[in-house]
């Protein structure tokens, strides 16, 4: 770590850190309401400028050109990615940024060890808390970095299907063991255990980082796309905890506070996502969810045979014409098809004709927490119209028409009725309680859970087969033509 050589006194630095931490908390509190959220985000950014600025002044580290160059490169990369991103690519970008934070933390802990080790000499002893925190930062940071890269790659479609193999858990456990042993070696020190362990600090740390990197890849590789909301939230928590542990290494208060806030945020979101699927975190991470059970295809065919009614945009328009209350339930299919603008326009037209329209959004719809809400907000849907599961479910009996577009498992009644179903107990949207349900889907193929959906065979359900954007646009055109 750099020596404090700047003109800024230590007390002022600590006060600046206090100010920054306060701004982070106020910023996060702003996120509790859509109206104050943008201001909260700016407050938080101001806190970051304050903390970094005070650090630079205190330690006079801005002089080396390398540092300035690094800052400029970082600003350019971050701004370019943020400005050029398409809304459909948001989940992978958020994942990628998570990874950057974790990676930086692992590198900082490593550099600090190299530094201290170099200064203190080979025979010297570093305090337990420093080496222990560095080991933790290295493991969490490296897992976050590589896990995020794999998650972003999967979301971006550059990586194929989830990778599964025999002895998966044993391999992961072995790699974790290597990382933990390297960490222990770092903490316990060679002297205590004789010459059997690597003598130098630094190489041990890099063994740990390599093992944790492999673990990060193995950890996310078997997890499928629809579980990504959990993975993104969990990696978010990890990037925060990595920063917090780095704070322990550097003995830096604002790193500890800010990192912990992020860790809490990520863990809360992880828990919400898991509960919304009625699955434990262990089941998401280690489970083999959605593996098609033998005979599933046959059972689906038997269930759907002669029981599914399909419809056309013209008929949907007639249904909407008679409706007084309409609920739209979007899913990942809407994001893939970029149908949010057509959906939002349809909602706007209906409202102009005096129809009450709301959106029912399942917490795990899409590929990251709140994915649907961001897409709809981009298409100018007011946030008051977006309802959470617990708010929208009691309203279905009073709803005339529900339009489900690009969603499947989150509207599957089997979650309530079939104890043996993989999604048994998962909170779902009770769309079937509405007068009529229109399900817009490409085909009858199963969703992520790999199970048939009895909703499609109900007497009040009509299937509108086709791509989300084309179908919604067709309904919109039909509505415009007749009004």
């Amino acid at each position, binding site marked *: 770590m750099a020596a404090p050589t700047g003109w800024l006194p230590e007390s002022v630095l600590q006060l600046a850190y206090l100010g920054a931490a306060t701004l982070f908390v106020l910023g996060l509190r702003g996120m509790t309401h859509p109206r104050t959220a943008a201001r909260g985000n700016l407050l938080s950014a101001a806190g970051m400028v304050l903390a970094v600025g005070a650090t630079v002044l205190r330690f006079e580290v801005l002089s080396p050109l390398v540092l300035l160059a690094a800052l400029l490169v970082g600003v350019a990369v971050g701004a370019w990615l943020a400005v050029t991103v398409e809304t459909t690519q948001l989940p992978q970008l958020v994942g990628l940024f998570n990874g950057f934070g974790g990676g930086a933390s692992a*590198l900082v802990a490593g550099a600090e060890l190299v530094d201290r080790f170099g200064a203190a000499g080979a025979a010297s002893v570093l305090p337990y808390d420093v080496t222990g925190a560095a080991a933790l930062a290295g493991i969490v940071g490296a897992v976050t970095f590589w896990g995020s890269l794999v998650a972003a790659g999967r979301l971006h479609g550059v990586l194929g299907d989830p990778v599964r193999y025999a002895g998966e858990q044993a391999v992961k456990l072995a790699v974790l063991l290597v990382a933990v042993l390297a960490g222990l070696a770092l903490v316990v020190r060679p002297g205590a255990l004789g010459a059997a362990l690597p003598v130098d600090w630094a190489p041990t740390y890099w063994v740990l980082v390599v093992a944790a990197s492999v673990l990060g890849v193995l950890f996310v590789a078997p997890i499928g796309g629809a579980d990504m909301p959990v993975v993104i939230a969990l990696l978010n928590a990890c990037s925060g905890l990595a920063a917090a542990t780095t704070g322990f290494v550097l003995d830096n208060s604002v790193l500890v506070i800010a990192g912990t806030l992020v860790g809490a945020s990520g863990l809360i979101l992880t828990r919400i996502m898991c509960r919304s699927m009625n699955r434990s975190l262990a089941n998401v991470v280690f489970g083999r969810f959605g593996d098609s059970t033998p005979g599933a295809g046959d059972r689906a065919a038997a269930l759907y045979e002669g029981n599914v009614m399909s419809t056309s945009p013209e008929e949907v328009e007639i249904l909407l014409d008679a409706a007084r209350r309409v609920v739209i339930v979007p899913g990942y299919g809407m994001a893939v098809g970029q149908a949010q603008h057509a959906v939002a326009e349809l909602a706007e037209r209906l409202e102009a004709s005096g129809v009450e329209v709301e959106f029912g959004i399942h917490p795990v719809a899409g590929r990251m927490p709140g994915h649907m809400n961001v897409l709809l907000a981009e298409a100018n849907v007011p946030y008051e119209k977006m309802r959470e599961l617990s708010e929208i479910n009691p309203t279905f009996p009073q709803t005339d028409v529900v339009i489900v577009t690009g969603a499947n498992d989150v509207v599957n009644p089997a979650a309530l009725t079939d104890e043996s179903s993989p999604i048994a107990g998962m909170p779902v949207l009770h769309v079937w309680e509405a007068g009529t349900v229109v399900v817009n889907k490409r085909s009858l193929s199963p969703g992520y859970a790999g199970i048939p959906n009895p909703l499609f065979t109900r007497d009040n359900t009509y299937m509108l087969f086709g791509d989300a954007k084309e179908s919604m646009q067709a309904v919109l055109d039909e509505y415009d033509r007749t009004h």
Partner: protein
Amino acid sequence: MTFVENLTLFVLAGFVGYEVITKVPANLHTPLIAGANAISGITLIGSVLVAGAGASTLATLLGFLAVVMATANVVGGYLVSHLMLRNFGRRRGD
């Protein structure tokens, strides 16, 4: 500061985070992740310190990489969160 003092901050910040974040509505979960993510870029402070120390070439190189990644994380995270939140604040017809 001692380890225990840092631990105190860790525990208290955990409680504050829990209280504040549980009140964030599902609507804002994506901007929350992006914004929180930017905060985790606070590790930039650590990067700046180790990169600026210049004790050894290796430490400087690691610090350089860390500064690039952390800065991208901070700037990109806040920016992408801001771009999303702009959509939430406005009313139809704005």
